[in-house]
């Protein structure tokens, strides 16, 4: 729709209002389940932030850096997955395949990390390329199935997830595991294949810069490249795209394949950044969290980082609340879900607006309208 300055302001006001409303409701629920709701909720709201503590001798110290690190680490995964889903959603396809692409990306990166030897820059680059390629292929398959055989992409991506995860676990247990270890996992990756840390005291690595680069790249793809234009037009109206001469099947396939690259890269963040090895389960169900991020960002690449950081903050805060208060994990998830629900529910604020309008007289409404026309 037409984005006038007024509409942008309205949208921001809307989001702030809805977030406040949701947080209030979250607090209300907390009061029902906690003996110390204020304390618990404070942990939730401020937990992920580092705190400055002043020593007796007047010096100061930053505490809770690792919690801050958790927030950023989680956000990196979320942003990459959010970008991945945003591309597919923009084409109005519905991929649930990020999970499988992430596992295969991690597997490919792990194989390169363990079995190749090269200086760090080359080694890491190769691993990243391998992960992206794995994700690309695992997105290409359901994309082509959808485009050329009209196979429902929700079903195919879910099935491919199972195949990918089982394949990952099979290769890991059978071939790649370190048999001297007491659990199923590979050896730690060599130094040259571990992403260097950029914030000391955390596990925030150069994956941060890779993510920033990915945001810019996806933004460029979607708003400055012919393929991005094709994806957007396909998403806006498939018949229009066909009529205009866009090769729609190719675009469907490519949109899902490119989205796979980003999920594959998220796999490198987990394996080469956080774990520094491959383990049996990487990060359960994180593949689906990208959908939340893309929804929050309205599929706009430039808003994905904001949405990813916001959602990452919620998730980290919720974990901290769970650890440091009497609120159970289930309730934490409920509160988190309510907040997301409120923000993504487009109807919430219009309802309030309507209620407000009903209290005004018809003449007053007529005076305030902007356009004339017939919606029929």
């Amino acid at each position, binding site marked *: *729709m*037409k*984005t*006038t300055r007024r509409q942008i302001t309205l949208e921001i006001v809307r989001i702030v209002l809805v977030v406040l409303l949701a947080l209030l409701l979250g607090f209300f629920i907390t009061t029902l389940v906690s003996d110390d709701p204020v304390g618990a909720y404070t942990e939730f709201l401020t937990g992920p932030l580092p705190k400055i503590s002043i020593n007796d001798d007047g010096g100061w110290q930053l505490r809770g850096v690792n919690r801050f690190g958790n927030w950023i680490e989680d956000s990196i995964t979320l942003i990459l997955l959010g970008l991945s889903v945003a591309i597919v959603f923009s084409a109005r396809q519905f991929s649930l395949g990020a999970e499988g692409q992430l596992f295969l990306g991690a597997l490919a990166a792990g194989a390169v990390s363990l079995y190749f030897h090269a200086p760090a820059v080359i080694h890491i680059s190769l691993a990243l390329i391998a992960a992206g390629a794995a994700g690309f292929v695992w997105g290409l398959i359901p994309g082509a199935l959808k485009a050329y055989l009209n196979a429902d992409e929700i079903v195919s991506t879910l099935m491919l997830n199972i195949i990918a995860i089982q394949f990952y676990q099979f290769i890991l247990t059978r071939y790649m595991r370190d048999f001297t270890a007491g659990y199923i996992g590979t050896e730690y990756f060599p130094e040259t294949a571990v992403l260097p840390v950029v914030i000391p005291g955390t596990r925030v690595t150069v994956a941060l810069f890779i993510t920033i680069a990915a945001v810019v790249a996806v933004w*460029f793809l979607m*708003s*400055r*490249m*012919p393929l*991005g*234009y094709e994806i*957007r*037009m396909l998403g*806006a*109206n498939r*018949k*229009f*795209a*066909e*009529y*205009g*001469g*866009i*090769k729609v099947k190719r675009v469907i396939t490519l949109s899902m394949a490119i989205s796979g690259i980003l999920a594959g890269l998220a796999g490198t963040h987990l394996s080469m950044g956080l774990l520094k090895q491959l383990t049996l389960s990487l990060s359960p169900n994180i593949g689906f969290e990208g959908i939340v991020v893309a929804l929050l960002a309205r599929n706009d690449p430039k808003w994905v980082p904001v949405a990813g950081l916001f959602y990452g903050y919620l998730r980290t805060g919720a974990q901290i609340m769970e650890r440091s208060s009497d609120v159970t994990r289930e309730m934490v998830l409920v509160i988190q879900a309510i907040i997301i629900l409120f923000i993504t529910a487009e109807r919430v604020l*219009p309802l309030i*607006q*309507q209620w407000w309008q009903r209290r005004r*007289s*018809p*003449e007053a*409404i*007529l005076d*305030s*309208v*902007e*356009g*004339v*026309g*017939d*919606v*029929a």
Partner: protein
Amino acid sequence: MPNLIDMRDIIKVYPNGVAANRDVNFSVEKGEIHALVGENGAGKSTLMKILYGLEQPTGGQIFLNGRAVTISTPHQAIALGIGMVHQNFMLIPSFTIAENVVLGQEPIKGQLIDAEAAINITRQLAQEYGLEVDPTAKVEATPVGMRQRVEILKTLYRGADLLILDEPTAVLTPQETDDLFDAVRRLVSQGKTVIFITHKLIEVKEISDRVTVMRHGEVTGRVQTAEVSEEDIARMMVGRDVLFRVEKPPQQRGEAAVRVSGLSYVSVTGRPLLRDVSFNVYRGEILGIAGVEGNGQTQLAELLSGLAAPTTGAATINGQSILGRGPRYVREAGVAHIPEDRLTNGVALEASIADNLVVDRYYRPPFTRRGAMSLRQIRQHAENLMQKFDIRAAGAGAAIGSLSGGNMQKVIIAREFSADPALLIAAQPTRGVDIGASEFVRRQLVEARNAGKAVLLISADLAEVFSLADRIAVMYKGEIVAIFQNSPDLTEEALGLYMLGLKRQTPAEIESQL
């Protein structure tokens, strides 16, 4: 005596802030035929939806026989004796006419529907009001004119005293239109009242007693039809003088730009939709395709624009074969296409005007160079075309969905004309477009012809075909049954006989006009 309907100070503001009705006063006397006219977006549909309970007014009151009423659902409207016949029929194709008429209020015998009673009821109603139908025929097997009569019977069966007919002639042939007008007159003579929504002024003059004109959500005229001319009504609708005739200089016909031969198309369900269609379109010519809708025109446009592949046949443009190679190939060969259904094919509603204007050329310079698109070029391109084609919008970034129907059509026309095509396919180019914009569109088509382009005009509006085309081909059941040189001697009635399949030219006659 109070008016049958009095709508007073009706205000309707949609949640998106658009005011469709602003202090509208509208009244209908019992027993009259009242025409409601206005351009698209003038607010007449909204007003009628309020009367029929489909929309709730933001302000104002409705009086029925002087008594204030609230109409919150179509159900209530029907209970009050108000019936509406929509432009798109709401019938069940696989049911018989009688079953459709009684649907929802079936006569019951024991636990079952009394089929015989349904047929008798339908026959009686049909006789009483002179709306001839075959009660036992399946709706899907009946022509459009009869379907419309079924819709009217449906509302009569439900006890309607006031009938709202929403652009009822849009889908009819001249003969069917005459029949409809006879039926409407008979309804009124039997004590019914009719509101007739239209934008064809000739019909307003012919059928109505009074006319209410709307513009920009307000009533701009309420007059006795006999006291005004078509030009007067048009002025009230548009707010300025309107030229009805398009100036058309003598034809400078050139070579055949397009040769279509033996084109046939069978649908996936096995129905033949086009049969052995052959014709040429010459440079500097408008070839009009006349015919009742659904006789293969849609498929013809789809084949020629690359959206579908034919079963058999060939088509060349300047000697280059274009069939079955997809829209991109066809467009690059020099075909432009104003599609029949603009909301489905012609635009992406949520995308910007600028994006909509480059869908056929975004990948070429100056829009894309070395893999990167230039937003500046795309915006400039849009601004140029918006100025040249008088597209009124907030800006090049405005979503197409925020434009009026006329401006939306101008966007499509701007794109297709600026592609500088050899062949321009214009399917129903002025459907749903208001008078002012229609005039513009028609002038553009003639200008394209004058500039030496081949124009294929597919239109259900016979008056439009007559005023624009150099030659007229008539399609019936997927075939071309006649081709004429357009001349003043050719009448709508004569053409109507071919459109209804009652007459056809011999193959030799058609051959001589190819």
